[in-house]
């Protein structure tokens, strides 16, 4: 056991750090505005030009086959540099792992490269009005027709969907509950998109209305009816490593410490605790990259989402009424959703109790 980076890892870190120092833009408008969405896409195209958009992917799709440790290094440097959040995150972190595992070569060729350059931006379409925590309750349908499928139903809380180009989600093709679901990719061009305003007024979510939207057979991922199994691989990514890398929280914690520099000891105490927790999450991740993540991703999800909330709540306490004029307030609003999305923390605690600890259902 050691914490020593190899010379190659150190060189990679230096390259990433230097590039970011030279290229990170000053604060972009919110990605949940049309203007900000385009600014974020442009930024990600520049990242892709430097082959830094998706470092862990194979070269043929725009990556550099970086190891998990290198990916973690990239993420640490990315967030420490103050670079913008990734408008393509649902695609590159949630859909892409699934495409690599279940996609055909032609699906991979069609979608991954464009995703890496943010030419396509993908929205996730899991939840439905009556299927939130209880995802297996979903009722949107895909009906088989010649050469493809017709999609019917309503998806909601689809992040980024107000401006995105594509979506991915589960549609029922037969059966009930977990059975007979099919994983479908679709263009948003033919879908009615109703933006939903978030707390700050921007349309961070949208509702998607499918009224017999046609998608060709080539847009089905994996076998029809296998959607649940395939989706679970995706949601496990969402909870785990890929969506929330430690670098993000470590960077927030470091900024929080700076913000608390002259604060009362009681508040500094909370900041120091957050810093240690962010370090713990980082170390834990280093320990986990070797093995199977499995259900420990649920522990990570609870830990980082509650840490993120604590950090931003402390920032609100430190800033008082002026908080609204700082990015901390936007971060706070976002952190409030952490215990909800990607499986509520109540669901995660059930998973930990039942699958990790073996308590009865």
């Amino acid at each position, binding site marked *: 056991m050691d914490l020593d980076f190899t010379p190659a890892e150190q060189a990679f870190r230096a390259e990433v750090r230097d590039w970011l120092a030279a290229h990170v833009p000053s604060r972009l408008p919110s990605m949940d505005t049309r203007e900000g969405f385009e600014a974020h896409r442009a930024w990600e195209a520049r990242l892709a030009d430097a082959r830094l958009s998706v470092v862990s992917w194979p070269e043929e799709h725009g990556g550099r086959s970086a190891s998990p440790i290198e990916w973690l290094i990239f993420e640490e440097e990315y967030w420490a540099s103050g670079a913008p959040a990734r408008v393509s995150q649902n695609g590159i972190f949630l859909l892409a792992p699934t495409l690599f595992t279940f996609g055909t070569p032609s699906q991979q060729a069609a979608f991954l490269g464009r995703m890496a350059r943010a030419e396509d931006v993908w929205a996730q379409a899991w*939840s439905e009005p*009556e299927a*939130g*925590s*209880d995802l297996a*309750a979903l009722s949107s349908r895909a009906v088989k027709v010649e050469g493809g499928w017709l999609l019917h139903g309503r998806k*909601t*809380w689809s992040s980024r969907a107000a401006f995105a180009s594509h979506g991915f989600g589960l549609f029922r093709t037969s059966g009930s509950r977990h059975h007979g679901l099919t994983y479908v990719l679709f263009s948003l061009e033919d879908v009615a998109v109703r933006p*939903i*305003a*978030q*707390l700050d*007024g921007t349309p961070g*979510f949208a509702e998607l209305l499918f009224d017999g939207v046609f998608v060709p057979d080539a847009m089905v991922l994996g076998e029809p009816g296998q959607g649940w199994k395939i989706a679970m691989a995706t949601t496990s990514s969402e909870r785990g490593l890929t969506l929330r890398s430690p670098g993000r929280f470590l960077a927030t914690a470091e900024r929080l410490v700076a913000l608390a520099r002259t604060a*009362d000891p*009681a*508040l500094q105490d909370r900041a120091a605790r957050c810093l240690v927790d962010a370090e713990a999450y980082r170390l834990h991740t280093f320990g986990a990259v070797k093995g199977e993540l499995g259900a420990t991703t649920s522990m990570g999800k609870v830990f980082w989402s509650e840490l993120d*909330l604590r950090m931003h*709540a402390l920032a*609100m*306490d*430190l800033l*008082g*009424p*002026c*908080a*609204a*004029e700082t990015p901390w*307030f936007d971060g706070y609003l976002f952190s*409030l*959703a952490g*215990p*909800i*999305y990607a499986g*509520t*923390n*109540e669901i995660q*605690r059930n998973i930990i109790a039942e699958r990790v600890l073996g308590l009865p259902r």
Partner: protein
Amino acid sequence: MNFSFTSEQLAFAAAVREVLRDRCDPADRVSCWKELTELGFFAALAPEEAGGLGLSLIDVVPALEETGRAAMPGPVVETLVAAPYAPQGVTRVSLLVEGVALDADLADLVVDVTGPSAVPVRPEPRRALDPGRQPYGVTVAGEPERLPGSAEALLRRATVGTAAQLVGVARQLLARSVEYARTRTQFGRPIGAFQAVKHQLADVAIAVEFAAPLVHRAALSVDEQDAPRPDRDVSAAKAAAGEAASLAARTALQVHGAIGYTGELDLRFWLARTWSLGAAYGTSAEHRIRVREAVFGA
């Protein structure tokens, strides 16, 4: 010793509640202003000879809780607590604290709390935590005019009044979360049947239940001439009320899930109110420090 509200105090609150019920629009910063003015609410603390009701702060605390419960926007507490200082006929008052005045655009009087003094100002809007409480950075644009009375008392009353509103906001967030948990179904049951949801909501109920008496004591301490430690009591009240409201808000969002986060429901007005009132006149964290310093010395 009778630490219960009198029937007059409760009746006044009921009247305010009646006015606000179904009529208060949390998106309109002058909603129900006229109706509450007619009720004498905003002049409640002014002496009778100045056209007020001559009440003490404690008398209006239950009514203030109602304005919080309704998420009534605008400078409610400010106008109420400044009434004893303000010339008759003033409709709305904004308090200037550390260069920022909430809802200064709506006020016909801006009071610098360090005086207190009336100051003519040029307001510049700032980004708000809460669409119902719009902050303005102000430049003083004329000669301040000293108002009668104590700056200390004004600020204490504003703080306790804000704490009382926070209790009301928390109660309403709890009530709405309970209502949602009774009706929203997942996994074939109302989510309120799940023990995790029950226990989170029970914790909110406990937090509100034990914050409220601290607010009531603080109002008494502010009203009384020779209370032994009004500032400590005020800080204990603001801290506890702010924390209870903050817990109620986080729990409400957790119980509602993504929908609580959006314009689909009007829950966001109550959430935002916990932030703006929580930050006004000192955050909970700041008041916790003041309590500690009062107990142990700075």
